[in-house]
């Protein structure tokens, strides 16, 4: 029998994060794509509980112009 692969743990669970702050725009920017849409947890490996918190935090940050909702070309 081959050895069982190690179970992947969500990066927020590993650091024991209870609440994701919407003002921490540097952290949120790691979880959005090149075109500024929310990255799916298939690609980031975040658990469902934290993905829901992340999504709401990103939406709040967009409302306060901390993050962009679409990518703008620099002129």
């Amino acid at each position, binding site marked *: 029998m081959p050895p069982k692969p190690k179970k992947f743990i969500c990066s927020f669970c590993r650091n024991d994060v209870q609440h994701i702050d919407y*003002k921490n725009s540097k952290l949120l920017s790691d979880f959005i794509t090149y075109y500024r849409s929310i990255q799916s947890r298939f690609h980031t490996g975040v658990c469902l509980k934290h993905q829901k918190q992340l999504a709401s935090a990103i939406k709040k940050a967009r*409302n306060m112009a901390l993050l962009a909702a679409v990518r703008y070309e620099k002129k």
Partner: protein
Amino acid sequence: MTQKYEILAIIVNSLDEKAAAKYATEHIVKKIKDEGGNVTFEDFWGERGFAYTINKQKWGYYFCAQFECEPQNIDGLKHEWNLDNTIVRFLITKVPKNAPKPQTQEEMEAQWAAEEKEQKIKEVATKTAKSAPKKPAPEKTPKVEEKEEKSTKEEKPKPKKDVIDKKLDEILEDSSLDL
């Protein structure tokens, strides 16, 4: 039952930085206190660029505060701030009980810089590990010896020309053969 809230407000950029800070204390903090709230945390971020233009403006002053207030008073505060033209936007959120201590923007930026430094150090370490020689290369002497052996095998003693001529002559002279 009082509830803990957090407000993040954007103040219009036509004011000075000092005037904007003064405006925040006068029109945001003071109004919370008038409603019977208790302000526990204040942080004036200063000027900051928007991710997109709002009312043809590219930057504004951010102000963050945490306060305890009765839930029925929140609607009145929202109504007043909505009518205020110097406040571009604001967002009121509930602070959950398990939330950590609020950080000022300066502390947050210092933390980001420290994280970036750590990442750079890690990248450099990985690069150096890749470029450095892993193990001393095995000595090539045995291979060379093998090649030499092969060359010796190939160099067989070739029959000389004189010997060949003699043999040919013998065959030609032989009368038993009908050529």
